[in-house]
């Protein structure tokens, strides 16, 4: 009886101690995440803009109503999903593919690994601007390459969808190494015995991949894909820099670049705050759907 009481006592002491150790992190998180978040939510219900910079007034749901009535809203919203979807498909396919190759015994494997990680290691800002130069109609290396292949030059940055494609190609190049690194770590933790047993049972390469590799990778890939979704959905840099702030004619925006422009070009702070809340809720919904799907598959 005494022993049990002592254990409970120790557990509660341990719990308290853990709470104390967590306190600094919690305090910092409250300060840098929770406070700005709720401040932003509050801002979204005001008419805060350049002309009401000092005296913003409560305007209820006006900003949210404006947001859904915005003629561009649906296009930007759908483009954001397309952007996220296309990028993720390529990130995962190329990332896992490269990881599978690097997991084999290849001559010069460390060199390939270093080269494939390079896009991820380079500052995004520099990569995006370099790619922008490469997409120039007359002097860009992409069109020069197309010319060598006998294909015509593409006005990458002058069309709505070509500019979007240029930004997507840039982001695919930037993003797949992350999935590759994660998948490579996962692959190296799969016991070789499982493959040997499968081979003895007569399983082919595809069967081994679908029955062993993919299920064993799922625990590491799921959080990586969730993170990748959030990062891609909220990737301001690539669209902003490659398409030069949503060019041509603001037609290549995704939600975050659109909201950034509303806030910092047009000073529509209240409206931009409402937009940010909408983006948060959308992402929250996506993550919840992912989690449920992952949980269902786990059981």
């Amino acid at each position, binding site marked *: 009886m005494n022993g049990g009481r002592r254990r409970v006592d120790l557990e509660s*002491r*341990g719990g*308290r*101690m853990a709470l*104390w*150790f967590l*306190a*600094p992190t919690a*305090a*910092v998180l409250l300060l840098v995440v929770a406070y700005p978040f709720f401040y932003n939510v509050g801002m979204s219900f005001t*008419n805060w*803009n*350049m*002309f009401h*910079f*000092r005296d913003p007034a409560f305007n209820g749901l006006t900003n949210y109503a404006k947001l859904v009535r915005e003629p561009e809203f649906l296009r930007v919203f759908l483009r954001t999903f397309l952007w996220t979807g296309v990028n993720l498909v390529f990130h995962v396919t190329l990332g896992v593919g490269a990881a599978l190759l690097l997991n084999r015994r290849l001559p010069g494997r460390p060199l390939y690994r270093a080269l494939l990680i390079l896009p991820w290691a380079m500052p995004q800002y520099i990569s995006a601007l370099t790619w922008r*130069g490469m997409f*120039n*109609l*007359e*002097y860009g290396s992409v069109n020069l390459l197309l010319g060598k292949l006998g294909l015509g030059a593409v*006005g990458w*940055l*002058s069309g709505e969808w070509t500019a979007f494609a240029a930004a997507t190609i840039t982001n695919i190049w930037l993003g797949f190494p992350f999935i590759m690194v994660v998948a490579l770590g996962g692959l190296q933790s799969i016991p070789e015995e499982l493959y040997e047993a499968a081979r003895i049972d007569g399983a082919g390469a595809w069967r081994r991949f679908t029955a062993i590799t993919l299920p064993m990778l799922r625990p590491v890939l799921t959080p990586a894909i969730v993170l990748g979704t959030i990062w891609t959905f909220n990737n301001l840099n690539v669209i902003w820099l490659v398409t*030069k702030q949503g*060019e*041509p*004619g*603001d*037609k290549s925006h995704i939600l975050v670049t659109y909201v950034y422009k509303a806030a*910092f*070009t*047009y*000073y*529509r702070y209240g*409206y931009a705050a409402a937009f940010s809340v909408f983006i948060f809720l959308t992402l929250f919904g996506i993550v919840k759907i992912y989690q449920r799907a992952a949980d269902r598959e786990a059981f």
Partner: protein
Amino acid sequence: MNRPCPHRIAPFVACLSLLATAGGCGRVDRADQVVIWEQMDPRERTLLERHIGEFQAAHPEYADIRISRANYNTEDLRTQFQTAAMAMGGPNLVYGPSDQVGPFVIMDLILPLDELLPPEVLARFDPSGLPTLEGHVWGLPDQVGNHLTLVANRAHVDAIPEDADAWVAQLRRLTVDRDGDGKPEIYGVVFDRIEPFFLVPWLGGFGGWVMDAQANPTLDSQGMIDALTFLKGLVEAGVMPRECDYQLADTLFKEGRAAYIVNGPWSWDGYRQAGVDIELGLLPRIPATGLWPSPMTAAKCYSVNRYTHPKSLPATLALLRWLTSPEVQTDLARELAVLPGDIEVRADPQLVADPLLAASRRQVDHGRIMPIVSEMRAIWDAMRPAYQACLSGELTPEAAAARMQERAVRLIAEMRE
């Protein structure tokens, strides 16, 4: 020996962690420093460092004041300053083109200089170079102009025509496509065809302008249609690249692959450094209207943050006066070929005799002051997409002008709501 219980020391560890975090932020007393945020080019920055050093040497009374500067690009400077000043922070001095003053004034982020400086200081400056709004002066310039002009590479150009028709004919002659692949080795003219800032001189040349005196957009005009038709004609004639942003235009000109570039004073020193033998000329007169193209002119000026610490305000103002003093402006004019804002410095015989500065001044005389009202931002953004669409052939000049106007009206309404 008693070992300390972990659960007893936990609160101390937590407090120490927080203190360490706070300490890591590195508190600097704003009373003891003067910070400048600027958007200068590398050469300008080097000169600024030198001028700050000279100020410190000449003012031992401010020896305990630490002076520092941070560089941003123009857009970042504006947004960073707004954000910092919203939180009652930011630099003491913010330096940039005078059009950023408009939003800063509306948001009440900067101080009126006519209430801080003696009238004789302000009287030294050309009034057209002083950003004035609501009856107050909000910035002190170290240079004026910031205007576009025609820059010729003398290796390709013998004489700069003053008539647009003759100029276009010359551009056709100067454009060289040796291998006939449709991609000329030398272009007649290059300029940034993304930013509508480069459209504005021609708009003025065809008798149009961006807004009226009440800051209402006037983009759907015959002047705009004619200006767009003129530029579209240059693209279709193949005398300029089909896709050309600022960096590409700059590179082509520096490499000697363009006979002319349309660019501003910030670029001339770079061309000289790159070994290009340049000559400035007026953007050529439009025969149909008899008007000269009118680039927008603006000052580059320092403004004082409203949230400057009162204790550092005297040092801030002293530094402001130093950085806009006749000596510094003379130095900038000599080193960078920029026009001084100080009336007496402008009359300096040595500067008057400088051919680059003389040509620059002629262009300024044909320029128009950039409105410093906040609506300009909406105007630029309304012009940009339609301008690009027109030059790439997606829109006719008439449709582009109408679309600019419609968008500008909508954006301004949204900004004001």
